[in-house]
């Protein structure tokens, strides 16, 4: 038996219709899982689902506002209705609003916290009953290197991502007895829309990150998917409450 095989498992990926989220959805599907993409944009989601189906895996999407508790509950119900079970939740959806802390508006602060941290909590809460009933499950939260390092021009983002690490630990110790493992992935500099936008806004940030990355390359969504498959599979049944940097060694080097 291959402990990394996800055949028969059902995975929900929030924000799974583009970038790192789509890479994760594809990775879990390739490892055998059926995938439910939870996102706001119908057209993008439809394209993502079609993309995964073309590669021979089952996929669907559910329009979800993760900041809304009712919407998260509906996501869980719809996933169960559609696929009959719910084994894996990947809390990937997140936003970044940059700016100096002294001029960050309360609205922006709350939007970042609400999407990145509260959204992850609400989704975890919504899938818990199904996972408990089934005898176990896997929850994976997307942190960031901003979870462990300070971020100039991104205090709200860093605070929300730091919160992800503590949410991960707390859910892990709360639900360990229910055989639900909860872990986080902390991506380093990954090629995505978000990082390309940052490069456009502040040219040179790409090169600076690359210079500090021992692996000598920028990461890809597939790199994150590789960690997702491990944390979604039976291979990690004794792994819980941890945060794995997938950063090419960026966080290890000064």
């Amino acid at each position: 038996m291959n402990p990394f095989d996800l055949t028969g498992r059902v995975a929900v990926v929030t924000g799974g219709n583009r970038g790192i989220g789509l890479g994760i959805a594809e990775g879990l599907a390739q490892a055998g899982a059926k995938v439910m993409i939870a996102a706001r944009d119908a057209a993008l989601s439809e394209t993502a689902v079609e993309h995964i189906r073309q590669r021979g895996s089952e996929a669907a999407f559910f329009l979800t506002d993760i900041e809304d508790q009712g919407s998260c509950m509906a996501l869980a119900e719809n996933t169960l209705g559609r696929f009959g079970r719910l084994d894996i939740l990947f809390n990937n959806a997140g936003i970044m609003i940059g700016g100096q802390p002294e001029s960050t508006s309360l609205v922006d602060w709350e939007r970042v916290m609400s999407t990145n941290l509260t959204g992850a909590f609400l989704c975890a809460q919504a899938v818990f009953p199904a996972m408990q009933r089934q005898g176990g499950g896997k929850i994976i939260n997307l942190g960031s290197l901003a979870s462990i390092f300070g971020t100039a021009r991104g205090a709200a983002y860093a605070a929300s991502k730091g919160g992800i690490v503590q949410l991960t630990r707390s859910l892990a110790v709360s639900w360990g007895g229910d055989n639900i493992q909860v872990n986080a992935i902390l991506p380093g500099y990954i090629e995505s829309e978000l990082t390309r936008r940052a490069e456009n806004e502040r040219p040179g940030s790409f090169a600076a990150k690359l210079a500090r990355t021992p692996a000598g390359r920028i990461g890809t969504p597939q790199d994150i998917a590789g960690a997702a498959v491990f944390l979604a599979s039976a291979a990690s049944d004794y792994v819980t409450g941890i945060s794995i940097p997938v950063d090419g060694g960026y966080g290890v080097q000064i």
Partner: protein
Amino acid sequence: MAFKSEGLGHAFNGKAALVTGAGSGIGRATALAFAEAGANVLAADISSEGAAETVAMIAEAGGNAVPFAVDVASSADVAAMVAHTIRHFGRLDYAFNNAGISGGRPGLDDFDEALYDRVMAINAKGPLLGMKYQIPEMLKTGGGAIVNMASVAGLTGVGAFAYTASKHAVIGMTKAAAIRYAARNIRINAVCPGLVDTPMVARAAANNVAAASPDLNPVGRAAAPHEIAAAVLWLCSGQAAFVVGHPLVVDGGMLAG
């Protein structure tokens, strides 16, 4: 290594893996897992009987392995072990520097210097010597992956002075080596098990020198050796291609709480 739908099924076909402390416990389970994933395995242990037993188990399962008797604290032994791997398999792709001892939990008042030296020599110098001889061989074939055995005792205190110091040392050297060789496609990481059902832990528990209670973590049980092996194989696989210098904790949530 491509990201494949079969996960790690036979991801290591044609590759060669070296495991120290392969004669029992986590080392044996990892040697078996590497072989099952298609790798040729050099099963090294201080006990030649233990190594031979593991090789027999791998052969029985249809895999390919060679035994080797090694004292990982001896530079000459470690060099010979790596040379033996190359002689048999022509290459070295993965190494798990796993051999270690617990050293008990004496207090500082009756602390034995010789015990400290022995624990450090096996647990800390062992992986350092391993990397010294493994890396040049991996560079010849364009890269590889190394996992060093640390412990949750590498990240927190467990009341055993020498053991805790040695495991902190392993994590430090893993990070230092990882950042030096990552650009040359050699990924170096560590694994940090919590409570694992192994002969070493059973011996320690029988001597009443380590608490062996499955109530100690949120998962509520000790790990089986194969669960640590799965983490080691993942770290060596293409699925962990961007994971560098990380001490991967496999502890049932012990450190989280």
